């Protein structure tokens, strides 16, 4: 993926404070010294290439509904099928394989704590495996975006 300095500026300088005005991309364009259409085209290209996940809001956890981090120790020969089973839940929005005995880590987010437990119980029932429930007790992070380095 090739990115020029303007792409990089779009990614670095606009992770927060998206203008809340009728034409936000025009406001961004003005700061970048390019046209509104070019901002839209660049964001479209960066989104399609995968460099940008989306242009929009980052929600605080537990603002809407409830969520948890869950972990499972899945036997290696079952990892693909259990991972697919977990990923298939619409309530699961992250699912990672990690290099530990607890090798499957996923986030369940839904409308209520009861519904979160329902999903975890369902996964436990269907796989016969223990699901470790690690809900957030305290969030220390102040999210100002992430400093990207280009070297």
């Amino acid at each position, binding site marked *: 993926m090739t990115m020029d300095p303007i792409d990089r500026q779009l*990614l670095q300088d*606009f*992770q*927060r*404070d*998206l203008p*809340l*005005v*009728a034409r*936000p991309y*025009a406001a961004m364009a003005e700061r970048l010294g390019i046209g*509104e259409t070019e901002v*839209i085209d660049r964001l*479209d290209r960066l*989104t399609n*290439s995968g*460099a*940008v*996940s*989306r*242009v*929009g*809001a*980052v*929600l*605080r956890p537990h*603002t*809407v*509904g409830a969520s948890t*981090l869950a972990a499972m120790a899945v036997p290696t020969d079952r990892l693909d099928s259990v*991972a697919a089973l977990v*990923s298939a839940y619409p*309530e*699961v*929005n*992250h*699912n*990672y*394989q*990690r*290099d*530990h005995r*607890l090798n499957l*880590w*996923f986030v369940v*987010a839904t*409308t209520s704590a009861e519904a979160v437990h329902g999903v975890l119980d369902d996964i436990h029932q269907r796989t016969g495996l223990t699901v*470790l*429930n690690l809900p*957030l*007790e*305290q*969030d*220390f*992070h102040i*999210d100002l975006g*992430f*400093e*990207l*380095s280009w070297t």
Partner: protein
Amino acid sequence: MTELDQIDRALIRATQAGLPLDEQPYHRVAATIGITAEEVMERLTRLLESGAIRRMGVVPNHYALGYRFNGMTVWDVADEDMAEAGRQVAELDFVSHCYHRPRFPPDWPYSLFAMVHGRDRDTADSHVAEIARVLGARSRSHLVLFSTRILKKTGLRLAP
């Protein structure tokens, strides 16, 4: 906890996958939920002020940008040290998330989680070493779990 009304929820549902890349994105969102663009902007401003929305902007995909070494670092920190330790780790600029979660000893004594990202393993390792230095003796043991495969990632969403 912020109280969200039905329109706030509809607004979050309508925008959680991203704003339209259109000259007037708030007008487009307004049309889909049946309110005015002015109300969309006012509500988003209020949700930002209350903290329900942390930020609005371009959300980069770190993995696609070359941050292939994503380590979930987990630390066994005594409960009485947690508040201060968590605050200090969260202040490190390379930490993208920092959470206190329950521990399940003896197998899982780790209660402080901090995510670090690097374009190479050495950078990620140096971030881990820096957290270890900040925590000092308050960390009784730790692990780094690198992700070996991303199986699903959609960002935090209001569930169906």
